[in-house]
């Protein structure tokens, strides 16, 4: 029996299309795999087994009938549980949305379905995407498939783990401060945060609107490219999308001018540092020019990031008052304000922490001191990076300064936890595209490198990632 679950998206859609195997067989294998793996990994909040099988059979029939099918025909995708899918429970790993059934599809999800992709399940995350480890979930932590004692990164940890553990080929995550790239690095898969405005956010449950993008996961650069080609482009339901519908190609070798971000590399663990330098050498051997650069304006980026993110979050999450949807809580005997307090105590500790911080930084008299200052830092950073991208096509560095750590290790120290986002938040503050691509292992644990480019230069990011992929030949899935 062919192990279909190991195939990448191009092979699956070709196989299904040419009727070498049926979508149903493939989905069936995945469901068996999920059943076997999930007790160890806990990547999924909801597995949509019945829906996936029905969709697979439907697709098989359409192919038998000679109908046209989309570019991702038959490919199983998982979707982070903060992205709405019509009629499928979307919980954000939170008690306050425990029973929530969205009445509509997120644009990105819908585009995947239109292209023939099959939803296999909704993946685990830090509650409302607030976290870097997928430990802050009311459904329990997701475990790193490479070492189930360790975190998979976050907040899209379920998405990255589901792809690494061969529970699906592709996944959609969301990246507000590194939430796609961090777990991609920790789980040794490819994860892209597109330029702000390239992918519609319609249907993505907002954490910090001005920072976040939906981004794809795959085991290869070419898989990520295939998803991006489907989800990217203008959406009339999202004012912040750019009027463009680009197509990208995978696997091109180019002679790029690459800047190696000294601040990021210097602060990384030595094993990671070594891998970053090796990646640079590999790129040079393929004709690229690499040199060390200093970004400079990095001192305040984390403070700026957490100020903006928490401010926006405090307002975005105000709607969860349990009056229109949510969880079982009778309003009998409460007056409004006390009901709000009761309902909103359903949030987890990290979410409460961020709501309180965000409420504080926006409060009267502090706006200018915090939120406005943070926006100024953002402009300065944007200006400095724009200048750098006049000299370099792309910036290279580690995705994360550390390798995956033990579950529970940092959970009680929020500041320490926030510090590990230092390399990823830059792309969110500037809106620029960034990818994490597997580049090696340090002490047996996955290490990804991050490539960042100027606004809408996704092609450059994909090209550089694909060159590292070719040169490194990294294993993408662990034994489980």
């Amino acid at each position, binding site marked *: 029996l062919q192990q279909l679950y190991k195939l990448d998206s191009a092979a699956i859609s070709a196989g299904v299309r040419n009727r070498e195997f049926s979508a149903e067989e493939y989905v069936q294998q995945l469901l068996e795999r999920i059943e076997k793996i999930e007790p160890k990994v806990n990547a999924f909040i909801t597995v949509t087994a019945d829906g996936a099988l029905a969709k697979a059979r439907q697709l098989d029939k359409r192919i038998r009938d000679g109908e046209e099918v989309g570019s991702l025909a038959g490919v199983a995708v998982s979707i982070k549980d903060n992205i709405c899918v019509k009629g499928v429970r979307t919980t954000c790993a939170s008690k306050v*949305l425990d029973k929530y059934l969205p*009445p509509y599809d997120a644009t990105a999800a819908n585009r995947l379905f239109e292209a023939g992709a099959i939803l296999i399940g909704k993946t685990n995350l830090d509650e409302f995407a607030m976290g870097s480890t997928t430990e802050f979930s009311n459904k329990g932590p997701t475990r790193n498939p490479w070492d189930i004692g360790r975190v998979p990164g976050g907040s899209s940890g379920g998405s990255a783990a589901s792809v690494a553990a061969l529970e699906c080929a592709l996944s959609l995550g969301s990246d507000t401060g590194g939430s796609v790239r961090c777990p991609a690095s920790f789980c040794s898969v490819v994860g892209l945060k597109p330029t702000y405005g390239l992918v519609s956010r319609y*249907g993505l449950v*907002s954490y910090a*609107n001005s920072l976040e993008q939906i981004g794809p996961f795959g085991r290869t650069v070419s898989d990520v490219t295939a998803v991006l080609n489907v989800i990217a482009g203008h959406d009339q339901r999202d*004012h912040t999308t750019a009027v463009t519908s680009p197509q990208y190609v995978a696997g091109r070798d180019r002679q790029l001018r690459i800047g190696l971000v000294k601040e990021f590399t210097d602060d990384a663990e030595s094993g990671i540092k070594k891998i970053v330098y090796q990646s640079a050498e590999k790129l040079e051997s393929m004709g690229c020019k690499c040199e060390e650069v200093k970004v400079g304006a990095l001192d305040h980026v984390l403070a700026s990031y957490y100020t903006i993110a928490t401010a926006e979050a405090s*307002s975005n999450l105000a709607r969860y008052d349990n009056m229109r949807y949510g969880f079982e809580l009778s309003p009998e005997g409460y007056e*409004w304000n006390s009901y709000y307090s009761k309902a909103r105590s359903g949030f987890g500790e990290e979410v409460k922490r961020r709501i309180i911080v965000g409420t504080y930084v926006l409060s009267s008299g502090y*706006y200018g001191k915090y939120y406005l200052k943070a926006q100024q830092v953002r402009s300065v950073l944007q200006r400095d990076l724009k200048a750098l991208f006049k000299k370099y096509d792309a910036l290279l560095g580690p995705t994360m300064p550390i390798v995956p750590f033990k579950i529970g290790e940092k959970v009680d120290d929020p500041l320490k936890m926030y510090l590990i986002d230092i390399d990823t938040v830059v792309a969110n503050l500037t809106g620029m595209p960034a990818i994490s691509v597997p580049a090696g292992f340090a002490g047996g644990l996955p290490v990804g490198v991050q490539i960042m480019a100027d606004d809408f230069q996704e092609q450059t990011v994909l090209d550089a990632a694909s060159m590292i992929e070719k040169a490194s030949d990294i294993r993408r899935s662990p034994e489980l």
Partner: protein
Amino acid sequence: METKIGLEIHCQLTGVMTKLFCACHCDYRGRSPNSNVCPTCCGLPGTLPLLNKKSVEFAAMISIALGCKIPLEIAFYRKNYFYPDLPKNFQLTQYNAYGITSIGTDGNVRYDEGKSAGIRRVQLEEDPGRLVYESGSIETSTYSLIDYNRAGVSLVEIVTEPDFVEPKDVRVFLDKVTSILEHLGVCDTGLEGAVRCDANVSVGGGNRVEIKNVSSFADVEKALRYEITRQKTMVSKEIEVKAETRHWDDARKLTKESRTKEEEQDYRYFPEPDVPRVHLGSSFISRVKESMPELPDARKERFVAGHGLSSQVAQVLIDRKEMADFFESALKVYDSPAEIANWIVNDLMGLIDERQRQERSIFSSLKIRPPHIAELAKLVDDGSVNRSTAKQILSRITESGEMPSEVAKQMKASKIDDVDELATVIDSVFKSEPNAVEDARRNPNAVNFIFGKVMKATSGRADPKAALDLITKKLKE
């Protein structure tokens, strides 16, 4: 003691088709609760606001008409507070700070003769949903229901400077603003809740009191009178006036302390990230200006200069767009401006009671239409009816909708005093009742029988004296 009054007027843009940030219909009235909603205006997770460009255009028109400056760029801000009628627990509105302003600022409106009021700002925002109290009032209800049909409807808030002294002036100003809104076609001011007004008032430099829950403009005047008297009385007794929000009690005609807890709200304004700044630009502003219909001031000027109306008569006409339109439609039928204006302003308005006069739309409950007034004026002009008869006709057709000429004919016919017409009837009665005629010739008392027959034949409309004269004369022939 110096009185200072400022106003906050909320006007729904009922002239746009859809809500401010989604495609739901802006006409929510009469729909069953929570049927005029979508994921966006319900604030469901993951939804994004999509700005209605028409609303921006309408808000710009209002700003221009109120003499405001319009910035080249506008932004929307979140006003964060918890209240059950707000689906997102924040309201998308505008904010004047950090180098960005609302769509209109620093305006000025002249009203009455030589008076004017400053407009602090005009801003575009979403209307919240509606709370329906089980027993009709917040104080006696054990539960309340929420209807989000209204949530997200475009609302323009007009904030004046505290430039008013007299409650009467407020009334005149509000009439003017309402007429402007009507002329712009942005708001059907006759709809319940389409235009709302809160007022704030202070006397002798004391604390400012805000008056809310005033349902009609006439009541704004009453509420202000009450509140000014209340504050002045307190001051004269050396009691400090509290800075507070008071509610207008429509039944008892007084303002009362609101029972809801007053606390200083911190709205934590910040720019809405999902609606990028809107660049208006000078071409937008000039385009809007060009597309603007005639405003009340210009129309009044035209009525005075073009139609020779007095300033007072013209003012009454333009205070309601409906009335000015009525006047102009009537002119198209019969071009006698002074006569027609006079009939509308003096006579027609005189027939309307105070309660009706407070409705924004007077004509919707009346059957009279422009052609009626036109014809009436013509009948008077050509001497067909005299003025006092015409007034009787007007009183009748206002309710019935009959044409004046028909009514005039009936009224005239009700006394057939035309000799020839009466003679014809009498002739036929003489022919059909030969025996009675013989009797009458012998016995003068029997004449009554013939007279009765004549009255019957004319359905009682024959002029009795004329008929009797003719019958007596004919009997002697």
